[in-house]
């Protein structure tokens, strides 16, 4: 059935964006803007692919992707938190660096074929009509993304560290006076969040299209940055946004495959246009007070800053 196929494609296309958005949300909830998402996805994709190729294990690949992206993100964390550097410039630098370094070291990986993740059906649930195949007959990374979405919610709203992290992002001075270490929480949030973005990149190179290509993320990282606002910094809505985007991508690919009159280039523009529209709407809602961004987002915290 066509709906099933499209839904399946939606989930698959949306998953790398979901990982990236979740990672970005963790960053921003702690108060740090991370514009390096695009670069982190590429780093994750290459590291994952290389490790999986060399070790023969996909799981090792995912782990490597997480670790590599975590370390790259830690640079951004160190610069913005410990060194109080400009968050926007640092993030852009990270993206540039990621694009360049993966191009450099990825040369030897181009053209290599890899057996990517295969589907794993969940007994019972995968038989459900319409949604069964799309959600319960997928590869393990997609199941991981479901789990992560829930875990992140639990972390933020039911755990003491999640509350502390949210406080750090909203009012770092208040958190500081309660004895919460602002710099530690922020740095860890940036590092771990970046690692999760890396898994999104690994999904691209190990599951979506098991290969490595220079610049293979093609702007998805930027879409994730925009989706954070759409998601109102919540993991549940992030899933919604990622799948909306995934659905559009699926439709667009479908049209291309069907051989339409519309130029492929125009069709490829659609996701970006869509993202801008989504961003505008989300921002309007934000300004109207319907959703709130972390009040301390984007500002460096210096304890000794005198008013």
């Amino acid at each position, binding site marked *: 059935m066509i709906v099933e196929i499209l839904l399946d494609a939606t989930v698959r296309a949306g998953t790398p964006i979901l990982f990236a958005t979740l990672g970005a949300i963790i960053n921003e909830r702690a108060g740090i803007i991370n514009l390096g998402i695009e670069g982190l996805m590429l780093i994750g994709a290459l590291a994952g692919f290389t490790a999986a190729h060399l070790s023969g294990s996909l799981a090792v690949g995912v782990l490597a992707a997480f670790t590599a992206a975590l370390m790259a993100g830690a640079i951004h964390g160190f610069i913005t938190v410990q*060194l109080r*550097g400009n968050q926007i410039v*640092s993030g852009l*630098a*990270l993206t540039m*660096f990621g694009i360049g370094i993966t191009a450099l070291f990825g040369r030897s990986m181009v053209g290599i074929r890899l057996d990517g993740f295969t589907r794993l059906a969940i007994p019972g649930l995968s038989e459900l009509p319409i949604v069964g195949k799309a959600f319960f007959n997928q590869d393990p990374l997609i199941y991981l993304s479901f789990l992560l979405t829930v875990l992140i919610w639990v972390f933020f709203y039911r755990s003491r560290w999640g509350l502390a992290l949210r406080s750090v992002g909203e009012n770092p001075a208040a958190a500081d006076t309660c004895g919460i270490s602002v710099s530690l929480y922020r740095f860890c949030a940036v590092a771990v969040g970046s690692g999760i973005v890396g898994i999104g990149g690994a999904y691209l190179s190990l599951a979506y299209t098991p290969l490595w290509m220079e610049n293979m993320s093609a702007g998805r990282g930027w879409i994730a940055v925009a989706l954070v606002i759409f998601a109102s910094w919540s993991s549940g809505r992030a899933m919604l946004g990622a799948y909306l985007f995934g659905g559009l991508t699926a439709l667009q690919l479908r049209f291309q495959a069907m051989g339409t009159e519309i130029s492929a280039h125009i069709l*490829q523009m659609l996701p*970006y246009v869509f993202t801008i529209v989504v961003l*505008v709407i989300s921002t309007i809602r934000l*300004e109207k007070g319907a959703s709130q961004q972390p009040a301390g987002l984007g500002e460096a915290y210096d304890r000794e800053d005198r008013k």
Partner: protein
Amino acid sequence: MIFAIEKRGAPSKTFAFTATVLSVLVALAVAGLLLLAAGVNPLAAYRDIVVESLGSLYGLSETLVKTTPLLFTGLAVSLAFRMQIWNIGAEGQLYMGACGASYIALFSGIENHLLMITTMFLAAALFGGCWGGVAGFLRARLRVNEVIVTLLMNYIAILWVDYLIYGPWRDPKGFNFPLTAQFSEAARLSEYFDTRLHSGFFLGLLLALLLYVFMERTIWGYEIKVIGSNPAAARYAGMKTGAAIFLVMFLSGAIAGIAGFSEVAGLQNRLQHGISPGYGYTAIIIAWLAKRSAIGVVIVSFLMGVLLVGGDSLQLIWQLPVAFVYAFQGLILFFLLGSDFFVRYRVRFRRKAA
């Protein structure tokens, strides 16, 4: 021993300058390590860069050729930056400017050289300006983050140009390559010294001068500086910040669009795929490095031109991907941010208090 971090009162200009230079050198060193890891001899590579870009008249002219679009985009981003607006879309605005100029060149039928060039120039500025103006409008009216919008619009602009050159504007005599027909003589800028150096470079220098006067001597420049320094205070003083944001983004986009004009009219004489290898992104570094000085933009653009010519030669000689330059640029930014820290703060070591 623990260390304490303290803010400095007012850092000296020489100290800041030295820190900047040092960080670029350190970035060079680290990039060298990366090259080593990729199997390239960094010293040889750097020597090649300098030789290729500065070692001959032709090399120098190539460097200036690359400097030209960097100058325009650097000025464009720098202008927006004075008002605390992040124009990450110089790349897309360049493409749209090129599109506008190409449209005039290919379809207007103008035969007079001066008229043609002027019209192309204006069309490029208009197209680039509108492209940037969209983000400016969204920011001014709806407070939408211009970083994301301008960036996404880069992708759209590049795809749009691809659509044109693969589709309706494709040169029927081009053997199916994605490019337009060559421009007529009337639509080309003059070249100098038997090299590819074209009038665009001098136009860029002129623009740098004009922008300097604009920012430092006019009431509009003053207004931009106040808004950049404190938009809330500017509003309180009665300045129309919304209109200013839109106009500055339009102007910034227009200048970046002129970079596109310069490339198609001066260098490539047609519209084709990949007319910019990321000038718009390099412009961000230029603007950041040059801080608030137009002469700074000129100097840094030249240095970046050296780097880009060098990057091309690295690709030819050492088979390095062109994108490697991005990594180098990223490193420069990282170390600039790092050194910025030491300029703004003093680190003191102290024993535990008695």
